[in-house]
C-alpha cells in the first residue's frame, strides 16, 4: 500500500473523484478519472480540445450524470444525490462557463441580481444593490453595470460571468477556459482575478485551460488529461520536466505557436 502523504491527512478534501467513466453513445469521453481537490487549492486541468475537460466539470456541478465511478463533492455523492440536496450543493459551487453564458436578455445588473434574488427572496433592495456593487468591485467592472451583455468585450463577459457566481459566495469555483480567446494582457488580468478570488473568498478551484501561462500563474497543482485519463499530476515544473512524450508535445506546441 502506498504511504499516505502527510498533507493529505491535514487538508480537507472538497472534491474526490474515483474511477469516473462517461460516454455519449459510442463516444467514450472519460475513462477512469481519479482526482482529489483539497480545501483552498487551485488545480489546473490541461488537455487538448475535445478531451472531455468540460464534461468533467459539468459532472462535478451535477449538469451531467456519471456513468460509473464515485464523484464526491463537499461530502455529497453526486451520483446518488436527490434534487433538494443538489440545489443546496449548487449554491456552494460557482461555474464560470467557457462562453460566459451571460443572460442575453438581461443587463449586467440583472444578470448579477438574478441568482441572488431567486435564492434568497427575503433580501431588501438595498442589500441586493450592495451585493451587486461588491462583486462588480471585485472584478473591477463597476462602469458596466447598466450595459447589456452584447455590449461587453469577451474579457468583460468572462469577468461578469465570474462575478455572477461570486455573488452566491461559492466554496468551489469551476472555471472552464477562463482565458480562451482573450489577448495576453487580458489573460493576465483574468489570472490575477482567479488568484484574488482564491484569496478573498477562500475558494477551492478547478481551472480548465490549454493556456500554459494561465496554468503557471494560477495553478497550485496541474493535472494533464489525455484520452479521458489523467496522465500526469504535480506542480507546474514537475509536470513539464517529465520525459513523457505526450506531455512534452503539449508543452512544445504551446510555446512554439
Amino acid at each position, binding site marked *: 500500500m502506498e504511504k499516505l502523504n502527510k498533507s493529505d491527512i491535514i487538508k480537507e478534501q472538497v472534491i474526490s473523484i474515483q474511477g469516473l467513466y462517461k460516454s455519449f453513445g459510442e463516444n467514450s469521453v472519460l475513462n477512469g478519472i481519479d482526482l482529489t481537490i483539497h480545501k483552498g487549492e487551485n488545480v489546473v486541468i490541461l488537455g487538448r480540445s475535445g478531451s472531455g475537460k468540460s464534461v468533467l466539470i459539468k459532472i462535478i456541478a451535477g449538469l451531467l450524470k456519471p456513468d460509473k465511478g464515485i464523484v464526491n463533492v463537499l461530502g455529497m455523492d453526486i451520483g446518488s444525490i436527490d434534487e433538494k440536496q443538489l440545489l443546496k450543493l449548487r449554491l456552494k459551487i460557482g461555474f464560470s462557463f467557457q462562453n460566459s453564458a451571460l443572460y442575453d436578455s438581461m443587463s449586467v445588473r440583472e444578470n448579477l441580481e438574478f441568482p441572488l434574488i431567486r*435564492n434568497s427572496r427575503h433580501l431588501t433592495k438595498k442589500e441586493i444593490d450592495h451585493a451587486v456593487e461588491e462583486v462588480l468591485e471585485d472584478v473591477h467592472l463597476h462602469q458596466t453595470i447598466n450595459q447589456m451583455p452584447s455590449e461587453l468585450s469577451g474579457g468583460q463577459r468572462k469577468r461578469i460571468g465570474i462575478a455572477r*457566481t461570486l455573488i452566491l459566495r461559492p466554496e468551489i469555483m469551476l472555471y472552464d477556459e477562463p482565458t480562451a480567446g482573450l489577448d495576453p494582457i487580458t489573460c493576465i488580468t483574468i489570472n490575477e482575478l482567479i488568484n484574488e478570488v482564491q484569496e478573498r473568498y477562500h475558494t477551492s478551484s478547478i481551472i480548465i485551460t490549454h493556456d500554459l501561462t494561465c496554468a503557471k500563474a494560477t495553478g497550485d497543482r496541474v493535472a494533464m488529461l489525455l484520452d479521458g485519463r489523467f496522465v500526469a499530476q504535480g506542480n507546474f515544473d514537475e509536470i513539464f520536466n517529465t520525459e513523457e512524450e505526450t506531455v512534452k508535445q503539449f508543452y512544445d506546441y504551446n510555446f512554439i505557436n
Partner: protein
Amino acid sequence: MSLKKREHITTKGLDDYFLGIYNAFKFVRLFFREVFKPPFEFKEIIRQCYEIGYKSLPLITLTGFVTGIVFTKQSRPSLVEFGAASWLPGLIAIAVVRALAPLVTALISAGKIGSNIGAELGSMRVSEQIDAMEVSAINPFKFLVVTRVTATTLMIPVLMMYFAFVGLLGSFLNVNQNEHTSFIAFFQSAFSPISFLDVFTGLFKSIMYGFTIGMVGCYKGYNASRGTEGVGKAANMSVVISMFLIFIEEIVIVQISNWIRIA
C-alpha cells in the same frame, strides 16, 4: 446494404421515435407538476404575456382585417344569387367565430410566437444559459418553460377574440359600403346565429392551441442540440410540429362539437 443492417436501422428509427414521444410526454407532465407549485413567477408571466400578446397585435390586426374584408367580398356573389345578401353578416360571423378566428390566429401564432420561443430557448440552451441557471440553483424549467406556456395559453384566446372583432369590423366596413347596413344592424344580425356553444368551442380551441404552441416551442428549444444549427432547427421544428398538432386538434374538436350540436 444487407437485410440485417437495414432492419437494425429501422428499429433504431422506431426506437428514437417512441423515445421522442416518451420524452415529450415527460416534458408535459413536468409542466403540470411545476405550474401549481409555488413560488409563482408572476412578474415573468406578465412580461411574457406582454411579449407574446401585445407584440403580436399589429400582425393579428392586419390579418384579421384583411380576412374579414376578403371573406365578405368573396361570399357576397353567391348569396346575392339566391337573393340572400342580408344573410351576409350572419354567415361571416359564423365563419369567423367558429373557424377562421381560432384557426388563423393559431397558425399565425405558431409561425410568429412558436418559432420565437423555439429560437430563444434554443439559443439559451446552446449558449449554456440554461445550464448557468441550473448551476446557480435556479429551476430553469419553471422560469423559462412554465412562464411561456402559461402566457401562450392565456394570450392566444385573447388574440383570437381580438382577431374575431377586427375581422367582423373589416366585414362591417365592406357591408356598410355595399349594402349601407348600420353598425348596430350589422352586429345584431351577425350575432343572432352565434350560440353559446360556438363561443365556448372557439375559446376552448384557442386555449388548446395556445398550450400547444407554447409547449412545442419550449420543448424544441429546451432540448435543442448543441451548435448553432440546433437553434434554427428548434425554431423550424416548433412551427412545423405545432401546426401539425393544431390541425389534428381542430379536426377532433370540430367533430366533437358537431356531435354536441346535433344531440
